[in-house]
Structures are given as structure tokens and as C-alpha cells.
């Protein structure tokens, strides 16, 4: 059992949800939670390998100027650690190889997709096979959505969870693939972890605005085959307390927000495995 769970929340270049994501990790019981600016990694001051749990928060990496997280992915792939030939990407590959956890939300999910970290079919973490593109509505929207979770998914983060209500806040959240085979394999491997759904959280839907972006198969979040790497468009870190819920003044809600359970599962997993 891991004596101390160490979490890194990566920020910089336009990331903006690091504070609440770190808060979620702390509430979930992580002993160490460091918000680390990417420049700290690039100058060698911090290393990914020192942590168990990597959080890639939402935001607008480089303004999403070349498409969401495109320039951010380019940096991750090509940037080297100062004073060495070591690539930052190498640290990421090692992190995955060591069986550690990665959670990407919104822009963090976009980054993972564009890096090829997800869905990583056949364990190929370097080839992009799906993408996240502009919502069918053509606009950025902030709205809460119902989510159906896949109980058969290997995803570590959603173990024991059935349904969820979280906000989306994005303009590029529509999952698209150019290869029907990819979708088949995602379904078969239960890598589709979360889908936009109706209010029962049981029936995936394509209709706007329940499905806020027109994502294929109503996909909201996917994991890799191991279930340890998970990305989603909705923001679990935005629902940590009942006062975050849009209708908390009219509904009886538990003290903790539903989003917290994803982080709890992650921390529990690390405690048990490491």
C-alpha cells in the first residue's frame, strides 16, 4: 500500500482549472498535491516520475489557437528538458508504463486525445485515432449534462458509479473518428466510459442539448484498455460540493458533489496498488 499518495496537477500556457482539480485531489485523500507549472518539468525542477497521479486540467492550452490542445500536444511531444536531451514525452511514457493514473478533463482530455494517449488501442499511446472537434452548435457552452457510466468499463475512476450530473464548458467536445473500426473496438473493450444521457442517466442520447456537442455514440469520456488513463469533457472538479449544483437551492443533495467520487476512486486505487 502506498504510504503517501502523490498527485501532480499540471498547469501553464493557458490551463485554468488547476486550483479546483487540486482541491478535488486533496478532498479525495491524496497526501501530496502539487500544482506544477510545466516550466518546472521543462527545467528539470520536478519530474513526473515522482508522482502517482497526473491530472491534466481544463483550460485553453495556447489559446486552442491551432485547434484544441494542438499546440499543447506539439509541446509535449517535442519539448526537451533543459540542459539534457531528455524529452518530456519520455517521462510520460514511463509514467504510463509504471501503471500510474492519468486523468484529463476538457482541455486536458483534448490534449490526451491529440497526443494519442487515448484511446491507445493495442497499447499504442503515440498515435491519434479519434479527435475532439467543434460542437455541432458551433459555440462554446456552459451547461450541465446527465451522464451514463459504463459499469463494464475497466476504468478505475468510475468503479461503482452509476450516472452522474456534471457541467460541460467547451466549444470543441465532439468526439469523431474516421475509422469505424476504432469505434467498434472502443465499444467492445468497454472503453467508452461515459455517455451523454437523458435524466435517468441510463439512456445515451444524441439530441441537443442533452448531448451538448453531437459526439458520436454520445461519448463524453473514454479510457485506455488498462482503465488507468481516463479523459472526459465534463468537469468532475466543478462539482465537489452540493453548492456547485445548479439546483442545490431546490433539491436535497448529499454534502459531497458527485464529481469527487472519481478522484476518490483514483486515490483508493493508488493506495491499494502502490
Amino acid at each position, binding site marked *: 500500500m502506498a504510504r503517501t499518495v502523490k498527485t501532480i496537477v499540471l*498547469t*501553464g*500556457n*493557458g*490551463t*485554468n*482549472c488547476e*486550483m*479546483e482539480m487540486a*482541491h478535488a485531489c486533496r478532498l479525495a485523500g491524496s497526501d501530496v498535491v502539487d500544482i506544477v*507549472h510545466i*516550466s518546472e518539468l521543462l*527545467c528539470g525542477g520536478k519530474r513526473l516520475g515522482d508522482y502517482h497521479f497526473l491530472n491534466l486540467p*481544463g*483550460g*485553453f492550452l*495556447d*489559446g*486552442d*489557437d*491551432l*485547434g484544441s490542445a*494542438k*499546440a499543447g*500536444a*506539439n*509541446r509535449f511531444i*517535442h*519539448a526537451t528538458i533543459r540542459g539534457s536531451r531528455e524529452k518530456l514525452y519520455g517521462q510520460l511514457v514511463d509514467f504510463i508504463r509504471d501503471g500510474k493514473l492519468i486523468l484529463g478533463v476538457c482541455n486536458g482530455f483534448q490534449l490526451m486525445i*491529440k497526443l494519442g494517449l487515448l484511446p491507445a488501442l493495442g497499447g499504442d499511446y503515440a498515435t*491519434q485515432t*479519434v*479527435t475532439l*472537434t*467543434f*460542437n*455541432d*452548435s*458551433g*459555440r*462554446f*457552452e*456552459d*451547461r*450541465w449534462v446527465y451522464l451514463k457510466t459504463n459499469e463494464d468499463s475497466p476504468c478505475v475512476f468510475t468503479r461503482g458509479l452509476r450516472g452522474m450530473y456534471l*457541467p460541460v*464548458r467547451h466549444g470543441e467536445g465532439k468526439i*469523431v*473518428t*474516421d475509422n469505424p473500426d476504432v469505434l467498434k473496438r472502443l465499444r467492445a473493450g468497454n472503453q467508452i466510459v461515459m455517455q451523454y444521457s437523458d435524466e435517468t442517466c441510463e439512456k445515451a442520447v444524441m439530441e441537443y442539448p442533452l448531448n451538448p456537442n453531437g459526439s458520436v455514440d454520445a461519448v463524453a469520456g473514454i479510457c485506455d484498455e488498462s482503465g488507468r488513463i481516463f479523459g472526459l469533457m465534463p*468537469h468532475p*472538479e*466543478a462539482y*465537489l460540493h452540493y*453548492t*456547485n449544483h*445548479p*439546483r442545490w*437551492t*431546490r433539491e436535497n443533495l448529499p454534502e459531497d458533489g458527485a464529481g469527487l467520487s472519481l478522484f476518490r476512486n483514483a486515490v483508493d486505487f493508488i493506495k491499494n496498488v502502490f
Partner: protein
Amino acid sequence: MAHRIEVGFRQGVRDVLGEKTARKIVEHLGIDVAGVETIEVYTIEGNLTGDELTAAAGGPLSDPIIQEYAVDRPLAAGFDWLIEVGFRPGVTDNVGKTAREAIGLLLGRHGAVQVYTSRQYAVKGDIGRDGAERIASGLLANELIQRYEIIGRDEWDSARGVAPYIPRVIIDDNPSSEEIDLAVSDEELQAISNSRVLALTVDEIKIIREYLRTESVLRGRETVGLGSQITDAELECLAQTWSEHCKHKIFNSLITYEDEQGKTELIDSLFSSCIKKATKKIRKVLGDDDWCLSVFVDNAGIIRFNDKYNLVFKVETHNSPSALDPYGGALTGIVGVNRDPFGTGKGSKLIFNTDVFCFASPFHDAPLPPRILHPRRIYDGVREGVEHGGNKSGIPTVNGCLVFDERYLGKPLVYCGTGGIMPARIQGEPTHSKKIIPGDVIIMTGGRIGKDGIHGATFSSEELHEGSPVTAVQIGDPITQKKMTDFLLIARDKNLYRAITDNGAGGLSSSVGEMATLCGGCDIDLKKAPLKYAGLQPWEILISEAQERMSLAVPPEKCEVFLALAAKMDVEATILGTFTDSGIFHVRYGEKTVAYLDMQFLHEGLPKMRLFARWTPPRHEEPDFPEPEDLGRALKEMLGRLNICSKESVVRQYDHEVQGGSAIKPLVGAANDGPSDAAVIRPILDTFEGVVVANGICPRYSDIDTYHMAACAIDEAVRNAVAVGGSLDRLAGIDNFCWCDPVESDKNPDGLYKLAQLVRANRALYDYTTAYGVPCISGKDSMKNDYIIGGTKISIPPTLLFSTMGKIADVRKAVTMDAKRPGDLVYVLGETCEELGGSEWFALHGFIGNTVPKVNAQRAKKLYRALSRAIDSRLVASCHDCSDGGLGIALAEVAFAGGFGMDIALSDVPREGITRDDYLLFSESQSRFVVTISPQAKEAFEEIMAGHTCACIGTVTSEGIFRIAGMSGKAIVEQSIGSLKEAWQKTLDF
């Protein structure tokens, strides 16, 4: 050698931007197009091999799943008209900058290329060249900042496509300092002011001329090689510092005010005698409990949040630039106001934005005067600019509103407000004040300096006219700013600098000039300033308003660490000089002095303006329309009015939840679509202490009396805060006056009246802020919101935005406006009088009237305190303020937001002098709320409300029908809540 990389969507992939563009062409321009496809173009300057170009195109510049790319050949095909839109030279190209960095990183060669972006719109449809021209100039390109090319199918070279175009800035790099002879005639002085956009009057230039004749001044100048003539840098610097925008000359002027009886009195500075004086009085009453920490002296006001943290707040406007380029103007407005709280005290982390826009109707269908953009284009552009500025900065937009009046056609008002939070102490030192010690190093961080934003301060100190400079328009870059603020917050917490301020209006001349007053002088070298491109004159470097820059005072021993941290975090930081106690604002370009001005003269040399005001109360026609037969239909018509209807489509496009502390959102209720009165956030996630943010604005009342307009705006901002659970205990205000020119002149013959309107609004501000104990902690004014071109003059209605920010002890006690349960009792708090002057109901019938709503602050204050007690005791299920459209609108909103019906008896509504049901429904009397409570809470609630105007007027019902019985008992409204909501939602559903 220049190359073009084009990126488009693959066959079969939806191009939503193209679809949206096609829709806009049809809706905005009425041109029928069959379809639009978009192609992103990267024009790349630099020595790249074919393989490298392909690596860039297939790497960071395109998405392998949905896009295709072409290098040095066109992608477009099968169109009728191709429109390519790119930037003009020198305009900020954020995407180009990101692409340049990405390619540099990809190739391992930093700075290997320059990248310029443009976008192609391949249009299908039989629209003719004329149609293509109209689409390009009327929708796709703003010719002030963009250029476009139109190519027809017949002239298309499908092998070569569009030739690369490089919008590089090419200026002779010949920096020099010019001397200007002021010993000339008045006409020539005026010409100097006009041609340089100085916005200085002849009298003001004469003060400068006199200064330069002072012997001691001349002796000082001699020591640095300057003579008796003013340099261009000095004149420009004085013009910035003395501009209305920076100096608030009108608010500080000596005013002779004559009232309607002909009695005159002398007012020495409205700012001192009304605004500052009110705050001083309130702080005195607070005594030891004074929670104001810094008022009026810094970029924003500061109040205490708790023992550990302070709150910071500022609201600004960015009207003139938004009139010319709505997107860039508004984007710059929001990222600009962000830097105010960021540059206050030791600097604060930004925690919320609040925006208020005033536009003409987006459905305007009359011909437009020259240089005016269609209000729909302004609406879309401003909305998008603030979306990009706010969302990309990671600051939640928690609250705001849209106000419509045809007179905002000449100049839209774009109010952007930002709040921040700072630790109360850093390394034991308080953070709310600023100190600079001579010898501290002047460092500029963030973006580089270009010609963008030159003369922004002086340009906005004039009306919009033919010669309004296009360089005043610029495009903000939220990511460069975010990188800078990420860095500076770390530097702040390591205590690496002594003071910070932002570079806004007036550029370095203002930022360094104002900081230098803290120590008594400065010495800067403009040659060290990083430039976007060569060729800027020293005076241009000094006053450029290029965005995303902060100036700092760094102790010499901390410079190295400060600069190293900046380099590590990839933020540019440059030493420009040192702060001194020489008493001189000393500016050099290399060794050569280009400005040498006494600090005293620069900041205090301008004598007060003397102005005259005469109040003549207007009389408007009294309305005479019969009470409508069908008040249900009237209610729906009112719900659909621009100033009342749902703004959901705008609100949803702003991230209102980032940072994780959202407690009361802008949209609330059973379907998350009811109109919230105010926002509540938790800026520190491990406490339930919260911040409430609200606004009040009611320019229509200015047509009758600005005194009551201001009183109502203040009351609205206060009662909105109270409605969600805020209290009068710790509520601070920000005043933001947007006026039409109140200085009488040939082109402004009713200046006396407009200045009297300003005086009256300020008196109300004094009366009501002191009555409520809500001190203004900062504010802003924008005094020239007129449009004068040719024979057309359009002046905005005098507009005061009053914004409030307060502390809420426990966000878990906050309430929302939606009815919660069937069977709950509906109360109205406050009295309804026949106060329909300036109301939406009268406006619907084409009248203004005269009975403007008046605020009884003493009575309201007691009511607000009682309501706060009731909310604190958790007796209130819902609470909604009555504002535009009055009680009828508020009741309907409470009902449909809750998803329930209501049975209401107007006969039970506390009222005075009202005999018509429509007046009772739509009067806009202030200080009223609609409250619902559970029947179990009745006794306790009524006990707290005893002695206040408060009555139970009905119940919440389960069946979804909204029923009102008139004063006689007769049913006057019976509508399904679905139909009411639909009427409310459909107007701005785009």
C-alpha cells in the same frame, strides 16, 4: 521565401464554422447562399524545406482525423466565390504567434519562421461579385484591421491558388525626437492638437508653453541637452496624462450649477464632493469596523474579505474601440480590466468577471450613418470578444446584463468588471498599499510594444468622428496575459517585487509616470523596450497601449531572481530604467533625452476646468392609452421586450463556473434557465464564506431625471445583492458613469443640461451610498459617448452602472429566485406606486411620461435588513427583485423558473395611488421583491417583516397556470407558464 499551408476539413466532416457563417450571411445580410466552407491558411515566412513544411502541416497545424492540408497549392474547389480574409500589417495575430512557436519547437529552431494567418470562405451560390463584396465587408472582415481578397470561379487558378501575402510592418527604422514649436497662433495650436490626436485644448497647450518659459525649467533641460521647445515625446506624454480618460477633468472641474429656480452654487469637483466624500463619511461611521482598505488611489478598490484575504474590484468601459471593432475592442476591454485588480496593491488573483453591454436593437432596420456598424454585428462581436477574453483567461463570468436603447447606435457601451482576491499579507507585509524606493528597478513584463493602441486614451476622450484613428483599435491576447499573470503571482508570493501596475491607457507614460509619483521620479530608456517590429519612434514606444503588459518596481537585489523566473516561465521581462527621487520624469532613447518633465507639472500642472450646468426639468407628454383588454397578452409582450427577455444564449457562452466556487449561477431554477439576480461564488474552496456580485443600471430614467436614475441604479445593485442573501454589512460599490459630452460648445449646444444631469446623478450617488452605507471603492467615467459625423449626432442616454461586491458569510444560506414548491406562499415586499415614468410599459406604448420611480432609502434599508434576517434564518424559499417591467414580470419569472403556476390577487398588493391593473402590474417602483416561503415559515417570516411593507398576495400552484386576479377580483391573466417562458425566451434566441 513565403509558403502557404492550407488546412480544411475532409470530405464528409462537418464544417460548423462554415455552416454558422452561411447562416449569418442569410440572417444578417439577407443574401441567399447555398453553403460556405472554411479553410485555414498559414502563410509561412522562413527557410523551410519541403519536408519541414509537410511536418508542420501534418503536425501542429492540422488534425489527422478530420482535416486535410496542402502545401503551396490550394485546397478550395467547387465554389462560386472565394473570400480570403487576413490581418493588416501590425494587427495582433494570436493564431499566427502560436503557430510560429509550435513550428519553432517542432523543428528545434526557435524563431525559425514568421507565421501570418488568414481564412478562406469558399461560398457556393449565385451571389455575384456584389454579393461577395457585401459578405466580405459587411460580415467577414473589419476593414480597419483586416484585408480581404475576392476571387470568382471564372478567374480561379486551381493550380496556384492565392499568392502568399505577408502583412509585415515595414517602417523606416529611424528613431528620432522631434521638437515642436508652440510659439504659434491659437489656430495653429489647435491644429497641432488635432493632427496628433492629442485632445488638448488651446488653453492647455498654452499652459505647457508657459511652463517651458520658466527659467528653472530651462536650466534643468539644458543639463540634458534639451532646449526651450517641447519634444514630441513630452507633448504626447502630457496629452495622455492630461486626457479626460486619465485625468477625469470633468469630474474634477469647478462647476457652477444652476437649479430650476435659478439658484446657483459652486461645486468643487464632483469626484471629491460627492463620491469620495460619501465614502469618507461611510468609513467614519464604520469606525474601527472599517473594512475598506484602499479606495480611489489604486487601479482598483480593496476591501477586507476575512483575516487572511482581501477582495479587489474594478469596472471599466471600452466603448470607443468596441464601436470600431466590436470583437477586438471588447476582447481588449475584458483583458484590460483584468489587469486593473491584477495590478492593484501587490497584485490579486482574478476570481470573477461581470459584464454589462448597452446596444441598440439587434433588429435595427433603418439605414446606418457612416462608420457605424449594425447593432447585430456589434452584439455578436462584443459577445464573442468577451467570451474569448474571459473564458481563455480562466475567469468565470458570473453575472451581467444587456441593456437596449436606440441611442446606443452611435456608441455601444461595453462595461467589463473584474474582481480579485489577494492574501492580506505577504511575508508579513500588508498587500493593499504600494511603496517604491528610489533605486528600485523598472521592469516591464508580458507582451511587446507595437503601434497598436496608440492614442487610445486621447481618442476615447473625444467623440467618434471621421478622423478617429484606427491604431486605437487592437486585439487582446488572453494567453500571453495568462502566462504573464501565472508568472507574476508566483513572483508576488516570493516577494520578488515591490510594486506593480498595469500598462493600460497611455502605456508606459501613464504606468511608469504614475508609479514614479510614489518615489518622486524615474529614469527610463525606451531603447531597451522590446518591440514587435522595428521603426517605432520614441514617443510611440512611450504611449503605445499594446496589451498584456505590466510594469513593476523591483528591488535591485531581487532583479536577477525575478528575471530568471520570468525566463524559466517563458515570459518576457525587460529592465527599462530606475525609479528616482529627482522630481523629474526623465525619458531617454539610448543616451539622448527625449522627455524631461517635472513630476509636479506632469501630474499637477493642469488647472481645474471651469464648467457651467443648468438644470431645466424636462416635461414629457403624459401617456393616454387605455388599459388593455387582454393583460395576458400584454404580459407576454412585455416578457419578450429586449430589456426584459432571457439572455440565456449569451450567458451560456460564458464560462461561469471555472475555478470551482460557483454557488449562485446566472441561470437558476427547475430547468436551469431562470434569471438570477446576482452571483455568489466561493473564491477560497475550503471555506463557505462567499462573494456576492450584482449590478444596477437603468438609463431610461435619465430622460426624466438623472438624480432618480442614479438612485434607482444604486438601489437595484444593492437589492440584487440582498435578494440572493447578501447583506448591507459588507457591500462595496463601483460607480461607472458613461455620459454624453457635458461641456457646452458649438457642436454641443445642450452641454449645460447634460452637465446638470451629471451633477444630479452624483448628488444621488452621495445621498444613496451614504444612506445604505455602501461605499464606492473605485470607479470610472467615460464622458464623450457621442457620435458626430456629417449632420448626424447621436448621444447615448446618460448611463450609470452601479456594481456591488460584498461578502456573504455562508453561501449555504444563499437563495435563488425560482419558486420552490407548490403550496408556498407568495409575498411582495415594498410598496407599489404609480411610477411608470421611463418604464418598459410606457416605452411599449411609445411614451416616456414623468413619474420616474423614486427611492426611499431609509425605508428600503430597514426592509433590506429585515429580508437579510429572514434569509439568514432560512425562512425564504425564493427571492426575486422587481425591476424592469415591475411586479408582473417578477412574478411570472419566479413562477416559470420554478416550473410551477401561481394564483395571485392584485387586491392584496400594498400600493399607493394606483387605480389601473396594468399600472400595478408594470409600475417600476423600486425596493421591491417577490418572495416565496413555505406555509410553515409564515409566522416567523411575518414576525421579522412586521413594520415593513409586506403582504401575502397568493400561492404557488402545481398545475403550471399563472393566474392573476385584478384589483376588482376579476381574472385578468391566465396563462400557462410554458407560454410565458416561451415568450420570454424567443426574442434573443440566437
